[in-house]
């Protein structure tokens, strides 16, 4: 099994392996295999289209966690210029699971805040698998308030399994750190745009997710609890995760139907990781559009609109 492909993508992986083989043979011999390769590539594309046409909520969950999926810092490199990373919550530590700093989007200053996962084992551990501790959320809060002072929009990138469930995190007030951010973000006098690029894991995601506009990548998820967690509580078995993912409606497309998402960003065929550059370009377009809309509003309108939006969640129909 090719680790770059998920279980449901294995037929594509097999086809791609064949194409690779033919290429190697073609390089060695004088016979041109380009026609044959072209045919197979067309077949592979069709197969991918077919498989990706109708993904289950669980398959989308797997894609949202794909080890090659672009992370916050990847988008930083491709969308923004002139990034200065800022560190620390000024109280306890710097949390590498949550990054932030000032950068430029189309030359205009913006504040970026996002969860960060690691690629290799060492980096994964250093980034704590994208699960922030209270100091991460407090750093985020500090940067948001700084953005308010310096009149910069806040752009957040959400990609976390959740806030870290550890002894130290509890000791330092994980709940309070999250709650505090929710309160501050509800009245921050600058536009906030949140983009879910991978996993939107519960309160740990929402703690940088209160916003004026929510964008979600096509194969990202946003959920009150992980499908595994939900399954082990309600079905008494983590193996029912796929059913739980479906029941909770955690995919971008379902959440768009339910009215939570403003902009759904289509991913390239096969997912963001198959063409990170194209994905980044689309995220950038969505961000620019969203910023233009929000920056046309005066602060009072913006805040009233944000409050109204928050109050509308689950309001009696």
């Amino acid at each position, binding site marked *: 099994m090719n680790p770059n492909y998920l279980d449901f993508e294995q037929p594509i992986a097999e086809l791609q392996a064949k194409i690779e083989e033919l290429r190697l043979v073609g390089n060695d011999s004088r016979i041109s295999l380009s026609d044959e390769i072209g045919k197979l590539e067309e077949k592979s594309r069709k197969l991918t289209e077919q498989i990706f046409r109708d993904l289950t909520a669980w398959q989308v969950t797997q894609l949202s966690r794909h080890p090659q999926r672009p992370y916050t810092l990847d988008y930083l490199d491709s969308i923004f210029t002139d990034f200065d990373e800022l560190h620390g919550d000024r109280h306890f530590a710097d949390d590498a699971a949550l990054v932030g700093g000032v950068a430029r989007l189309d030359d205009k200053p913006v504040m970026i805040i996002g969860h960060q996962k690691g690629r290799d084992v060492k980096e994964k551990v250093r980034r704590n698998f994208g699960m922030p501790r209270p100091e991460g959320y407090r750093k985020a809060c500090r940067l948001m308030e700084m953005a308010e002072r310096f009149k910069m929009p806040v752009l957040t990138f959400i990609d976390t399994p959740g806030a870290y469930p550890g002894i130290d995190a*509890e000791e330092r*007030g994980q709940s309070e750190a999250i709650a505090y951010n929710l309160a501050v973000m509800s009245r921050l006098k600058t536009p906030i745009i949140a983009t879910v690029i991978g996993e939107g894991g519960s*309160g740990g995601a*929402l703690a940088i997710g209160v916003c004026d506009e929510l964008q979600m990548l096509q194969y990202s998820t946003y959920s009150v*609890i992980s499908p595994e*967690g939900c399954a082990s509580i309600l079905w008494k078995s983590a193996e029912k995760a796929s059913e739980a993912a479906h029941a909770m409606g*955690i995919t971008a497309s379902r959440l768009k139907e339910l009215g939570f998402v403003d902009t759904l960003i289509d991913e390239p065929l096969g997912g963001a990781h198959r063409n990170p550059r194209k994905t980044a370009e689309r995220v950038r377009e969505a961000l620019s559009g969203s910023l233009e809309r929000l920056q046309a509003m005066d602060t009072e309108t913006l805040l009233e609109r944000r409050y109204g939006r928050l109050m509308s969640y*689950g309001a009696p129909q």
Partner: protein
Amino acid sequence: MSWLDKIVPSMSRTQRNDRRASVPDGLWRKCPNCESVLYLPELEKHQNVCPKCQHHLRLTARKRLNWFLDAEGREEIAGDLQPSDRLKFRDSKKYKDRLASAQKSTDENDALIAMRGALDGLPVVAVAFEFSFMGGSMGAVVGEKFVRAATLALEEEIPLVCFAASGGARMQEALFSLMQMAKTSAALEKLKLAGVPYISVLTDPVFGGVSASLAMLGDLNVAEPNALIGFAGPRVIEQTVRETLPEGFQRSEFLLEHGTVDMIVSRPELRERLGSVLRKLTHQPVVGVSADDASVEVGDFSPLPDEPDASRASR
């Protein structure tokens, strides 16, 4: 079947099987801490605090508010709000059926009760979570009721008090329930900016989405003794860190030590302590001193109760 039988089914079953038992069902309850067998009317007289060991047993939301607020002038807020199953959620059971059975067993519409009233004459809005309604979980109705209570407190400029007891967000309402965290926190931020006091009382247990929103945002966070309070549940943490958790982890006393709560107050002292703090925050005289005698300037002040209490004034 009484509400108590639901909570202690095993106990009532043994009673029913015991032919010698001459007492009616559900008149006795064992303290989960010291195991003393307690006479229910006696236990209720002490607001479910064990008279032997002072263990704080859970109290239903309605009993809690009826005890906390003065008997005069209590008025329920948004009591008619009904939960709805927006996602047609179904696990081993339909959410609709879970709601129906929770409503039947608790006689409440959802897991939060809100009331306006007074605390020793001081007008307040108070809300309480009903833990026996699906673990006090926060869905759309809980969030909406909380916001309506907070908005009333804001408009009338009277303090808000919340008694939290909840396992967290209600999974069956998925993202609708997650967003209640942001919704309730936004409403509380308005109170904060307007200088309207909010006291969050943490009772056993408070976790997840409720802990990481409205329950931690009090001007004062107050805990009942020995309540279990945290973000992640102890089992989840144990599985993650693969260590045994320290003694007393996530108990009220642990939170006090780590600076998360302002004070631990036992239930019998709660009315008096909260009243005392709120009267200072709202510049009201101590109970028993009339507004005319007080040196501070006061706004509208409803009539004082007839019986002055020296012990309250001494705090």
